[in-house]
Protein backbone atom coordinates (compact mmCIF):
# COMPACT_ATOMS: atom_id res chain seq x y z
CA UNK A 1 0.00 0.00 0.00
CA UNK A 2 2.87 2.35 0.83
CA UNK A 3 6.42 2.98 -0.32
CA UNK A 4 9.10 4.99 1.43
CA UNK A 5 10.40 8.20 -0.12
CA UNK A 6 13.95 7.67 -1.21
CA UNK A 7 16.57 9.64 0.63
CA UNK A 8 20.15 10.57 -0.09
CA UNK A 9 20.95 11.07 3.60
CA UNK A 10 22.31 8.18 5.67
CA UNK A 11 19.79 6.50 7.96
CA UNK A 12 20.42 4.15 10.88
CA UNK A 13 18.36 1.02 10.51
CA UNK A 14 16.88 -1.74 12.63
CA UNK A 15 15.84 -5.22 11.51
CA UNK A 16 12.66 -6.82 12.85
CA UNK A 17 10.58 -9.75 11.68
CA UNK A 18 6.97 -9.43 10.58
CA UNK A 19 5.28 -12.83 10.51
CA UNK A 20 8.75 -14.39 10.43
CA UNK A 21 9.89 -12.29 7.46
CA UNK A 22 12.85 -9.95 8.13
CA UNK A 23 12.16 -6.26 7.47
CA UNK A 24 14.76 -3.51 7.77
CA UNK A 25 13.63 0.04 8.48
CA UNK A 26 14.89 3.26 10.07
CA UNK A 27 15.46 3.32 13.82
CA UNK A 28 12.72 5.27 15.61
CA UNK A 29 9.82 3.86 13.61
CA UNK A 30 6.94 1.88 15.12
CA UNK A 31 5.80 -1.71 14.84
CA UNK A 32 2.80 -0.41 12.85
CA UNK A 33 5.21 1.16 10.35
CA UNK A 34 6.96 -2.23 10.17
CA UNK A 35 3.64 -3.85 9.18
CA UNK A 36 3.25 -1.20 6.49
CA UNK A 37 6.85 -1.64 5.32
CA UNK A 38 6.25 -5.39 5.10
CA UNK A 39 3.19 -4.75 2.91
CA UNK A 40 0.95 -6.27 5.57
CA UNK A 41 -2.45 -4.51 5.83
CA UNK A 42 -3.76 -6.88 8.51
CA UNK A 43 -2.32 -6.99 12.02
CA UNK A 44 -5.01 -8.95 13.84
CA UNK A 45 -8.35 -10.67 13.57
CA UNK A 46 -11.16 -9.68 15.92
CA UNK A 47 -12.17 -11.81 18.93
CA UNK A 48 -15.86 -11.79 18.01
CA UNK A 49 -16.25 -12.41 14.27
CA UNK A 50 -12.66 -13.09 13.26
CA UNK A 51 -12.68 -10.13 10.89
CA UNK A 52 -9.27 -8.85 9.76
CA UNK A 53 -8.14 -5.44 11.01
CA UNK A 54 -5.14 -3.21 10.52
CA UNK A 55 -3.85 0.12 11.85
CA UNK A 56 -6.56 2.79 11.48
CA UNK A 57 -5.57 5.90 13.49
CA UNK A 58 -1.81 5.45 14.04
CA UNK A 59 -2.03 7.58 17.19
CA UNK A 60 -3.11 5.22 19.93
CA UNK A 61 -6.86 5.85 19.84
CA UNK A 62 -8.51 2.92 18.03
CA UNK A 63 -6.63 -0.20 19.26
CA UNK A 64 -7.08 -1.82 15.86
CA UNK A 65 -3.31 -2.22 15.50
CA UNK A 66 -3.03 -4.78 18.32
CA UNK A 67 -0.40 -7.42 17.46
CA UNK A 68 1.81 -9.95 19.20
CA UNK A 69 5.25 -8.54 19.96
CA UNK A 70 7.98 -10.94 21.07
CA UNK A 71 5.24 -13.38 22.03
CA UNK A 72 3.22 -10.91 24.13
CA UNK A 73 -0.34 -10.19 22.93
CA UNK A 74 -2.31 -6.94 22.80
CA UNK A 75 0.60 -4.63 21.99
CA UNK A 76 -0.43 -1.38 20.35
CA UNK A 77 1.77 -1.51 17.26
CA UNK A 78 1.44 2.21 16.49
CA UNK A 79 2.72 3.15 19.97
CA UNK A 80 5.59 0.65 20.11
CA UNK A 81 8.99 1.68 18.85
CA UNK A 82 10.92 -1.05 17.04
CA UNK A 83 14.09 -2.67 18.38
CA UNK A 84 16.57 -4.92 16.62
CA UNK A 85 15.29 -8.48 16.54
CA UNK A 86 11.71 -7.58 17.54
CA UNK A 87 9.23 -10.28 16.50
CA UNK A 88 5.95 -8.87 15.25
CA UNK A 89 3.19 -11.38 14.60
CA UNK A 90 -0.47 -11.32 13.73
CA UNK A 91 -2.79 -11.60 16.71
CA UNK A 92 -5.62 -14.04 16.12
CA UNK A 93 -8.93 -13.93 17.96
CA UNK A 94 -9.99 -13.39 21.55
CA UNK A 95 -7.67 -12.02 24.15
CA UNK A 96 -8.31 -10.09 27.31
CA UNK A 97 -6.55 -6.78 27.45
CA UNK A 98 -5.01 -5.49 30.69
CA UNK A 99 -5.28 -7.77 33.74
Amino acid at each position, binding site marked *: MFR*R*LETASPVETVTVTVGGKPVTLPRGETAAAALVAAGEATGRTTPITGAP*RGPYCMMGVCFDCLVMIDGAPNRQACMTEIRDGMRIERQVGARRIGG
Partner: protein
Amino acid sequence: MSANWDLAVIGAGPAGMSAAMAATRLGLKVGLLDEQPRPGGQIYRNPAQPTPEVLEALGEDYAHGMELIEKFRAADIDYRPGATVWDVMAGGEIAFLRDGRSAEVQARHVLLATGAIERPVPVPGWTLPGVMTVGAAQILLKTGGYVPDQPAVLVGGGPLLYLVAWQYLKAGAQIGAILETVPRSNLWSALPHASGMLSQGRLLAKGRRWLRDLRSARVRRIRGVTDVRIEGEGAAEAVTFQKGGRRQTIQTPLVLLHEGVIPNTHISLALGLEHGWNDIQQWWQPRLDDWGRADKPGFSVAGDGAGIWGAEAAEHLGLLAAHGAAMALGKDGLDQAGVAEARGALKSVAGARAFLDRLYRPARSQRVPAADDTIVCRCEEVTAGQVRQAARMGALGLTQAKAYTRCGMGPCQGRLCAPTVSALIAETRGLDDAEVPAYRPRPPFKPVTLGALAAPAFRAKAG
Protein backbone atom coordinates in the same frame (compact mmCIF):
# COMPACT_ATOMS: atom_id res chain seq x y z
CA MET B 1 10.64 8.24 40.32
CA SER B 2 8.07 10.17 42.32
CA ALA B 3 8.28 13.94 41.78
CA ASN B 4 6.57 17.06 43.08
CA TRP B 5 5.80 19.71 40.52
CA ASP B 6 4.01 23.06 40.68
CA LEU B 7 2.57 22.44 37.25
CA ALA B 8 2.16 19.12 35.47
CA VAL B 9 1.48 19.42 31.75
CA ILE B 10 0.06 16.42 29.90
CA GLY B 11 0.89 16.55 26.19
CA ALA B 12 3.92 17.87 24.30
CA GLY B 13 2.14 19.40 21.32
CA PRO B 14 2.34 23.15 20.60
CA ALA B 15 -0.05 23.91 23.50
CA GLY B 16 1.82 21.84 26.10
CA MET B 17 5.30 22.92 24.99
CA SER B 18 4.37 26.59 24.95
CA ALA B 19 2.63 26.33 28.34
CA ALA B 20 5.55 24.52 29.94
CA MET B 21 8.06 27.08 28.67
CA ALA B 22 5.92 30.04 29.77
CA ALA B 23 5.34 28.51 33.21
CA THR B 24 9.07 28.02 33.68
CA ARG B 25 9.63 31.68 32.83
CA LEU B 26 7.03 32.55 35.48
CA GLY B 27 9.07 30.70 38.06
CA LEU B 28 7.07 27.48 38.35
CA LYS B 29 8.61 24.08 38.70
CA VAL B 30 7.25 22.33 35.63
CA GLY B 31 7.04 18.73 34.51
CA LEU B 32 5.61 17.42 31.26
CA LEU B 33 4.35 13.92 30.47
CA ASP B 34 3.80 12.81 26.89
CA GLU B 35 3.01 9.46 25.39
CA GLN B 36 5.21 9.91 22.34
CA PRO B 37 8.94 9.23 22.27
CA ARG B 38 9.72 12.79 21.11
CA PRO B 39 8.06 16.19 21.58
CA GLY B 40 5.93 17.85 18.89
CA GLY B 41 2.39 16.54 19.34
CA GLN B 42 0.26 15.56 16.37
CA ILE B 43 1.13 18.45 14.10
CA TYR B 44 4.90 18.45 14.57
CA ARG B 45 5.20 14.71 15.08
CA ASN B 46 8.86 14.50 15.27
CA PRO B 47 10.70 11.75 13.43
CA ALA B 48 13.79 10.21 15.02
CA GLN B 49 15.72 10.72 11.81
CA PRO B 50 14.15 13.42 9.65
CA THR B 51 15.33 13.26 6.04
CA PRO B 52 15.46 16.36 3.82
CA GLU B 53 13.09 14.68 1.37
CA VAL B 54 10.38 14.28 4.01
CA LEU B 55 10.86 17.78 5.45
CA GLU B 56 10.52 19.22 1.96
CA ALA B 57 7.20 17.43 1.41
CA LEU B 58 5.78 18.60 4.75
CA GLY B 59 6.13 22.32 4.03
CA GLU B 60 7.20 25.40 6.02
CA ASP B 61 4.80 25.07 8.99
CA TYR B 62 6.72 22.02 10.00
CA ALA B 63 9.98 24.00 10.09
CA HIS B 64 8.38 26.35 12.63
CA GLY B 65 7.60 23.31 14.76
CA MET B 66 11.19 22.15 14.69
CA GLU B 67 12.27 25.56 16.11
CA LEU B 68 9.64 25.34 18.84
CA ILE B 69 10.85 21.86 19.76
CA GLU B 70 14.45 23.06 19.99
CA LYS B 71 13.47 25.86 22.39
CA PHE B 72 11.38 23.43 24.42
CA ARG B 73 14.28 21.01 24.75
CA ALA B 74 16.55 23.82 25.96
CA ALA B 75 14.14 24.96 28.69
CA ASP B 76 14.31 23.84 32.32
CA ILE B 77 11.43 21.36 32.25
CA ASP B 78 11.24 17.88 33.75
CA TYR B 79 10.18 16.34 30.44
CA ARG B 80 9.20 12.66 30.46
CA PRO B 81 8.68 11.25 26.98
CA GLY B 82 7.10 7.84 26.41
CA ALA B 83 4.86 8.41 29.45
CA THR B 84 1.22 7.36 28.96
CA VAL B 85 -1.01 8.93 31.59
CA TRP B 86 -3.57 6.36 32.80
CA ASP B 87 -5.04 8.14 35.80
CA VAL B 88 -5.40 11.73 37.03
CA MET B 89 -6.84 12.18 40.49
CA ALA B 90 -8.68 15.14 41.97
CA GLY B 91 -5.76 15.92 44.29
CA GLY B 92 -3.28 16.31 41.42
CA GLU B 93 -1.73 12.84 41.58
CA ILE B 94 -0.96 11.52 38.12
CA ALA B 95 -0.23 7.89 37.29
CA PHE B 96 1.55 7.03 34.08
CA LEU B 97 3.09 4.06 32.30
CA ARG B 98 6.64 4.32 31.11
CA ASP B 99 8.80 1.45 29.85
CA GLY B 100 6.15 -1.03 30.96
CA ARG B 101 6.07 0.23 34.58
CA SER B 102 3.65 2.51 36.34
CA ALA B 103 4.92 5.56 38.19
CA GLU B 104 3.32 8.59 39.78
CA VAL B 105 3.90 12.30 40.17
CA GLN B 106 2.20 14.89 42.29
CA ALA B 107 1.34 18.37 41.00
CA ARG B 108 -0.26 21.45 42.53
CA HIS B 109 -1.90 22.28 39.21
CA VAL B 110 -2.58 20.06 36.20
CA LEU B 111 -2.82 21.28 32.61
CA LEU B 112 -4.38 18.95 30.06
CA ALA B 113 -2.91 19.60 26.61
CA THR B 114 -3.87 16.31 24.99
CA GLY B 115 -4.91 17.77 21.64
CA ALA B 116 -7.44 16.44 19.17
CA ILE B 117 -8.42 13.14 17.63
CA GLU B 118 -9.92 12.58 14.22
CA ARG B 119 -13.69 12.29 14.16
CA PRO B 120 -14.85 8.72 13.48
CA VAL B 121 -16.15 8.13 9.94
CA PRO B 122 -18.47 5.13 10.37
CA VAL B 123 -19.25 4.26 6.75
CA PRO B 124 -19.86 0.68 5.58
CA GLY B 125 -16.49 -1.06 5.20
CA TRP B 126 -14.51 1.39 7.36
CA THR B 127 -13.09 -1.48 9.43
CA LEU B 128 -11.42 -3.20 6.46
CA PRO B 129 -7.62 -3.29 6.38
CA GLY B 130 -6.49 -0.72 3.83
CA VAL B 131 -8.85 1.90 5.27
CA MET B 132 -7.25 4.43 7.58
CA THR B 133 -7.68 8.03 8.51
CA VAL B 134 -6.00 10.79 6.54
CA GLY B 135 -4.20 11.73 9.77
CA ALA B 136 -2.89 8.18 10.15
CA ALA B 137 -1.48 8.27 6.64
CA GLN B 138 0.09 11.64 7.44
CA ILE B 139 1.73 10.17 10.55
CA LEU B 140 3.31 7.53 8.29
CA LEU B 141 4.55 10.33 6.05
CA LYS B 142 5.90 12.45 8.90
CA THR B 143 7.62 9.69 10.82
CA GLY B 144 8.86 7.45 8.04
CA GLY B 145 8.36 9.17 4.69
CA TYR B 146 5.69 6.67 3.59
CA VAL B 147 3.47 7.61 0.66
CA PRO B 148 0.87 5.48 -1.18
CA ASP B 149 2.44 3.23 -3.81
CA GLN B 150 -0.81 3.12 -5.78
CA PRO B 151 -3.33 5.93 -6.27
CA ALA B 152 -5.12 6.32 -2.92
CA VAL B 153 -8.63 7.71 -2.61
CA LEU B 154 -9.16 10.43 0.00
CA VAL B 155 -12.74 10.77 1.27
CA GLY B 156 -14.33 13.51 3.36
CA GLY B 157 -13.43 17.14 3.88
CA GLY B 158 -11.59 19.66 6.00
CA PRO B 159 -8.23 21.44 5.87
CA LEU B 160 -6.16 18.41 6.93
CA LEU B 161 -7.46 16.41 3.97
CA TYR B 162 -6.31 19.01 1.46
CA LEU B 163 -3.02 19.51 3.28
CA VAL B 164 -2.18 15.81 3.08
CA ALA B 165 -3.24 15.63 -0.58
CA TRP B 166 -0.91 18.56 -1.23
CA GLN B 167 1.93 16.94 0.74
CA TYR B 168 1.49 13.76 -1.35
CA LEU B 169 1.64 15.87 -4.49
CA LYS B 170 4.91 17.45 -3.34
CA ALA B 171 6.28 14.01 -2.53
CA GLY B 172 5.42 12.77 -6.02
CA ALA B 173 2.77 10.29 -4.87
CA GLN B 174 -0.33 9.67 -6.97
CA ILE B 175 -3.84 10.44 -5.78
CA GLY B 176 -6.66 8.42 -7.32
CA ALA B 177 -9.35 10.93 -6.38
CA ILE B 178 -10.60 13.19 -3.63
CA LEU B 179 -14.24 12.43 -2.85
CA GLU B 180 -15.74 15.48 -1.14
CA THR B 181 -18.62 14.71 1.21
CA VAL B 182 -19.09 18.11 2.80
CA PRO B 183 -22.56 19.47 1.89
CA ARG B 184 -22.25 22.27 -0.64
CA SER B 185 -24.93 24.20 1.22
CA ASN B 186 -22.35 24.72 4.01
CA LEU B 187 -21.02 27.62 2.00
CA TRP B 188 -24.16 29.62 2.80
CA SER B 189 -23.71 29.31 6.54
CA ALA B 190 -19.98 30.00 6.23
CA LEU B 191 -20.19 33.07 4.01
CA PRO B 192 -21.38 35.51 6.70
CA HIS B 193 -18.08 34.71 8.48
CA ALA B 194 -15.90 35.19 5.41
CA SER B 195 -14.43 38.44 6.70
CA GLY B 196 -12.87 36.55 9.61
CA MET B 197 -11.16 34.26 7.15
CA LEU B 198 -10.04 37.14 4.94
CA SER B 199 -8.31 38.83 7.86
CA GLN B 200 -6.13 35.74 8.27
CA GLY B 201 -4.01 36.40 5.20
CA ARG B 202 -1.39 33.74 5.77
CA LEU B 203 -3.88 30.97 6.45
CA LEU B 204 -5.95 31.95 3.45
CA ALA B 205 -2.91 32.04 1.16
CA LYS B 206 -1.89 28.59 2.37
CA GLY B 207 -5.28 27.04 1.64
CA ARG B 208 -5.47 28.67 -1.77
CA ARG B 209 -2.03 27.38 -2.64
CA TRP B 210 -2.98 23.79 -1.74
CA LEU B 211 -6.12 23.94 -3.88
CA ARG B 212 -4.36 25.67 -6.77
CA ASP B 213 -1.55 23.12 -6.81
CA LEU B 214 -4.04 20.25 -6.68
CA ARG B 215 -5.91 21.80 -9.59
CA SER B 216 -2.85 22.31 -11.75
CA ALA B 217 -1.75 18.74 -11.09
CA ARG B 218 -5.21 17.69 -12.32
CA VAL B 219 -6.03 15.76 -9.18
CA ARG B 220 -9.58 14.46 -9.58
CA ARG B 221 -11.91 16.15 -7.09
CA ILE B 222 -15.47 14.85 -7.02
CA ARG B 223 -17.82 17.11 -5.08
CA GLY B 224 -21.21 16.45 -3.54
CA VAL B 225 -20.49 12.77 -2.89
CA THR B 226 -22.94 10.82 -0.68
CA ASP B 227 -23.51 7.24 0.52
CA VAL B 228 -19.84 6.23 0.60
CA ARG B 229 -19.09 2.52 1.02
CA ILE B 230 -15.85 0.64 1.02
CA GLU B 231 -15.90 -2.81 -0.48
CA GLY B 232 -13.51 -5.72 -0.46
CA GLU B 233 -12.95 -9.29 0.67
CA GLY B 234 -10.62 -9.21 3.66
CA ALA B 235 -9.18 -5.82 2.66
CA ALA B 236 -10.28 -2.67 0.82
CA GLU B 237 -10.57 -3.13 -2.93
CA ALA B 238 -12.89 -0.32 -4.01
CA VAL B 239 -14.85 2.66 -2.82
CA THR B 240 -18.33 3.26 -4.17
CA PHE B 241 -20.46 6.37 -3.81
CA GLN B 242 -23.51 8.23 -5.03
CA LYS B 243 -23.02 11.32 -7.17
CA GLY B 244 -25.67 13.13 -9.16
CA GLY B 245 -28.15 10.26 -8.80
CA ARG B 246 -25.64 7.70 -10.09
CA ARG B 247 -23.59 5.06 -8.23
CA GLN B 248 -19.90 5.14 -9.09
CA THR B 249 -16.98 2.91 -8.16
CA ILE B 250 -13.24 3.55 -7.95
CA GLN B 251 -10.90 0.60 -7.47
CA THR B 252 -8.22 1.21 -4.81
CA PRO B 253 -6.52 -0.77 -2.03
CA LEU B 254 -6.08 2.36 0.11
CA VAL B 255 -8.94 4.56 1.29
CA LEU B 256 -8.16 7.51 3.56
CA LEU B 257 -11.05 9.00 5.56
CA HIS B 258 -11.29 12.39 7.24
CA GLU B 259 -14.18 14.47 8.59
CA GLY B 260 -12.23 16.91 10.71
CA VAL B 261 -10.89 16.64 14.24
CA ILE B 262 -12.61 16.89 17.63
CA PRO B 263 -11.14 17.68 21.06
CA ASN B 264 -9.60 14.70 22.83
CA THR B 265 -11.75 15.04 25.94
CA HIS B 266 -11.00 11.61 27.38
CA ILE B 267 -9.25 12.83 30.53
CA SER B 268 -11.27 16.03 30.99
CA LEU B 269 -14.52 14.03 30.86
CA ALA B 270 -13.13 11.38 33.20
CA LEU B 271 -12.23 14.11 35.69
CA GLY B 272 -15.81 15.32 35.57
CA LEU B 273 -14.85 18.83 34.45
CA GLU B 274 -17.85 20.76 33.19
CA HIS B 275 -18.23 20.55 29.40
CA GLY B 276 -20.47 22.29 26.89
CA TRP B 277 -21.66 21.09 23.48
CA ASN B 278 -20.17 22.87 20.47
CA ASP B 279 -22.84 22.49 17.82
CA ILE B 280 -20.68 23.61 14.92
CA GLN B 281 -17.72 21.39 15.73
CA GLN B 282 -20.18 18.71 16.88
CA TRP B 283 -18.47 17.62 20.08
CA TRP B 284 -18.05 18.53 23.74
CA GLN B 285 -15.45 20.94 25.04
CA PRO B 286 -14.53 21.85 28.61
CA ARG B 287 -15.95 25.11 29.94
CA LEU B 288 -12.98 27.31 30.78
CA ASP B 289 -12.32 30.83 31.98
CA ASP B 290 -10.21 33.34 30.02
CA TRP B 291 -7.08 31.71 31.40
CA GLY B 292 -7.92 28.13 30.43
CA ARG B 293 -8.98 27.16 33.96
CA ALA B 294 -11.76 24.58 34.40
CA ASP B 295 -14.60 24.67 36.94
CA LYS B 296 -12.67 22.36 39.27
CA PRO B 297 -9.79 24.19 40.99
CA GLY B 298 -6.36 22.86 40.10
CA PHE B 299 -7.22 21.91 36.52
CA SER B 300 -6.75 23.72 33.22
CA VAL B 301 -7.02 22.75 29.56
CA ALA B 302 -5.22 24.29 26.57
CA GLY B 303 -4.88 23.65 22.83
CA ASP B 304 -7.18 21.57 20.65
CA GLY B 305 -8.33 19.65 23.71
CA ALA B 306 -10.19 22.82 24.72
CA GLY B 307 -12.00 23.13 21.38
CA ILE B 308 -10.53 22.99 17.89
CA TRP B 309 -8.52 26.15 17.38
CA GLY B 310 -5.55 24.86 15.40
CA ALA B 311 -1.84 24.67 16.03
CA GLU B 312 -1.05 28.39 15.99
CA ALA B 313 -3.77 29.13 18.56
CA ALA B 314 -2.60 26.17 20.64
CA GLU B 315 0.67 27.97 21.38
CA HIS B 316 -1.18 31.11 22.50
CA LEU B 317 -3.67 29.14 24.59
CA GLY B 318 -0.75 27.35 26.21
CA LEU B 319 0.84 30.65 27.20
CA LEU B 320 -2.42 31.92 28.67
CA ALA B 321 -2.99 28.67 30.56
CA ALA B 322 0.49 28.91 32.08
CA HIS B 323 -0.43 32.36 33.37
CA GLY B 324 -3.75 31.08 34.67
CA ALA B 325 -2.00 28.33 36.59
CA ALA B 326 0.64 30.73 37.91
CA MET B 327 -2.05 33.09 39.21
CA ALA B 328 -3.92 30.20 40.82
CA LEU B 329 -0.66 29.27 42.56
CA GLY B 330 -0.22 32.83 43.81
CA LYS B 331 2.62 33.93 41.51
CA ASP B 332 2.90 37.47 40.26
CA GLY B 333 5.13 39.11 37.66
CA LEU B 334 3.02 38.09 34.70
CA ASP B 335 4.24 38.76 31.16
CA GLN B 336 1.63 41.42 30.28
CA ALA B 337 2.97 42.00 26.77
CA GLY B 338 2.99 38.29 25.99
CA VAL B 339 -0.58 37.91 27.27
CA ALA B 340 -1.81 40.85 25.19
CA GLU B 341 -0.14 39.48 22.09
CA ALA B 342 -1.67 36.04 22.63
CA ARG B 343 -5.15 37.49 23.14
CA GLY B 344 -4.89 39.59 19.98
CA ALA B 345 -3.74 36.64 17.89
CA LEU B 346 -6.49 34.40 19.26
CA LYS B 347 -9.15 36.90 18.33
CA SER B 348 -8.17 36.81 14.69
CA VAL B 349 -7.84 33.01 14.68
CA ALA B 350 -11.38 32.79 16.09
CA GLY B 351 -12.67 34.70 13.08
CA ALA B 352 -11.10 32.26 10.64
CA ARG B 353 -12.27 29.27 12.68
CA ALA B 354 -15.88 30.47 12.55
CA PHE B 355 -15.65 30.34 8.76
CA LEU B 356 -13.73 27.05 8.44
CA ASP B 357 -15.82 25.13 10.97
CA ARG B 358 -19.02 26.04 9.14
CA LEU B 359 -17.57 25.39 5.70
CA TYR B 360 -16.32 21.91 6.63
CA ARG B 361 -19.07 20.87 9.05
CA PRO B 362 -19.47 17.18 8.17
CA ALA B 363 -22.57 15.82 6.48
CA ARG B 364 -24.81 14.02 8.93
CA SER B 365 -24.65 10.89 6.77
CA GLN B 366 -20.87 10.69 7.28
CA ARG B 367 -21.33 10.88 11.06
CA VAL B 368 -24.45 8.79 11.59
CA PRO B 369 -24.73 5.60 9.55
CA ALA B 370 -28.07 5.12 7.78
CA ALA B 371 -27.66 1.35 7.34
CA ASP B 372 -28.30 -0.71 10.47
CA ASP B 373 -25.53 -3.21 9.69
CA THR B 374 -22.70 -0.62 9.72
CA ILE B 375 -20.22 -1.16 12.54
CA VAL B 376 -20.14 1.71 15.02
CA CYS B 377 -17.96 0.33 17.83
CA ARG B 378 -14.87 -1.13 16.22
CA CYS B 379 -13.66 -2.85 19.40
CA GLU B 380 -16.80 -4.85 20.18
CA GLU B 381 -18.17 -4.93 16.63
CA VAL B 382 -21.46 -3.29 17.62
CA THR B 383 -23.63 -2.08 14.72
CA ALA B 384 -25.72 1.05 14.27
CA GLY B 385 -28.84 -1.14 14.40
CA GLN B 386 -27.89 -2.53 17.82
CA VAL B 387 -27.35 0.98 19.18
CA ARG B 388 -30.70 2.13 17.75
CA GLN B 389 -32.30 -0.87 19.45
CA ALA B 390 -30.62 0.00 22.77
CA ALA B 391 -31.89 3.58 22.45
CA ARG B 392 -35.42 2.32 21.87
CA MET B 393 -35.08 0.13 24.95
CA GLY B 394 -34.20 3.13 27.06
CA ALA B 395 -30.46 3.87 26.74
CA LEU B 396 -30.04 7.60 27.35
CA GLY B 397 -26.29 7.72 26.68
CA LEU B 398 -23.20 5.66 26.02
CA THR B 399 -23.10 4.46 29.60
CA GLN B 400 -26.46 2.70 29.32
CA ALA B 401 -25.90 1.67 25.71
CA LYS B 402 -22.89 -0.26 27.03
CA ALA B 403 -25.11 -2.41 29.18
CA TYR B 404 -27.23 -3.41 26.20
CA THR B 405 -24.59 -3.75 23.50
CA ARG B 406 -21.05 -3.76 24.99
CA CYS B 407 -20.22 -0.73 22.81
CA GLY B 408 -17.55 1.33 24.53
CA MET B 409 -16.39 -1.63 26.61
CA GLY B 410 -13.41 -2.46 24.43
CA PRO B 411 -9.88 -1.14 24.93
CA CYS B 412 -10.60 2.23 23.25
CA GLN B 413 -13.14 2.88 26.05
CA GLY B 414 -15.48 4.75 23.73
CA ARG B 415 -12.91 7.26 22.44
CA LEU B 416 -13.81 6.33 18.90
CA CYS B 417 -17.47 5.25 19.08
CA ALA B 418 -18.86 7.81 21.54
CA PRO B 419 -19.59 10.53 18.93
CA THR B 420 -21.49 8.06 16.74
CA VAL B 421 -23.32 6.35 19.60
CA SER B 422 -24.47 9.70 21.01
CA ALA B 423 -25.69 10.85 17.61
CA LEU B 424 -27.58 7.58 17.07
CA ILE B 425 -29.23 7.85 20.48
CA ALA B 426 -30.21 11.47 19.78
CA GLU B 427 -31.67 10.50 16.42
CA THR B 428 -33.63 7.51 17.76
CA ARG B 429 -35.01 9.35 20.78
CA GLY B 430 -35.74 12.55 18.87
CA LEU B 431 -33.33 14.64 20.96
CA ASP B 432 -30.78 17.30 20.14
CA ASP B 433 -27.18 16.07 20.17
CA ALA B 434 -26.51 18.23 23.23
CA GLU B 435 -29.25 16.46 25.20
CA VAL B 436 -27.44 13.12 25.15
CA PRO B 437 -25.00 13.16 28.07
CA ALA B 438 -21.29 12.91 27.28
CA TYR B 439 -19.65 9.59 28.06
CA ARG B 440 -17.75 9.30 31.32
CA PRO B 441 -14.50 7.37 30.92
CA ARG B 442 -12.93 5.71 33.95
CA PRO B 443 -9.32 5.02 34.75
CA PRO B 444 -7.21 3.26 33.68
CA PHE B 445 -7.34 5.35 30.47
CA LYS B 446 -5.05 2.85 28.79
CA PRO B 447 -4.85 -0.85 29.63
CA VAL B 448 -2.48 -1.39 32.54
CA THR B 449 -1.21 -4.84 33.46
CA LEU B 450 -0.95 -5.78 37.12
CA GLY B 451 2.74 -6.43 36.56
CA ALA B 452 3.23 -2.77 35.64
CA LEU B 453 1.94 -1.58 38.99
CA ALA B 454 4.73 -0.98 41.45
CA ALA B 455 2.71 1.20 43.81
CA PRO B 456 0.13 -0.89 45.71
CA ALA B 457 -2.12 2.16 46.10
CA PHE B 458 -2.99 1.94 42.43
CA ARG B 459 -3.65 -1.78 42.38
CA ALA B 460 -7.24 -1.62 43.49
CA LYS B 461 -8.08 0.88 40.77
CA ALA B 462 -6.49 -0.96 37.87
CA GLY B 463 -7.83 -4.42 38.81
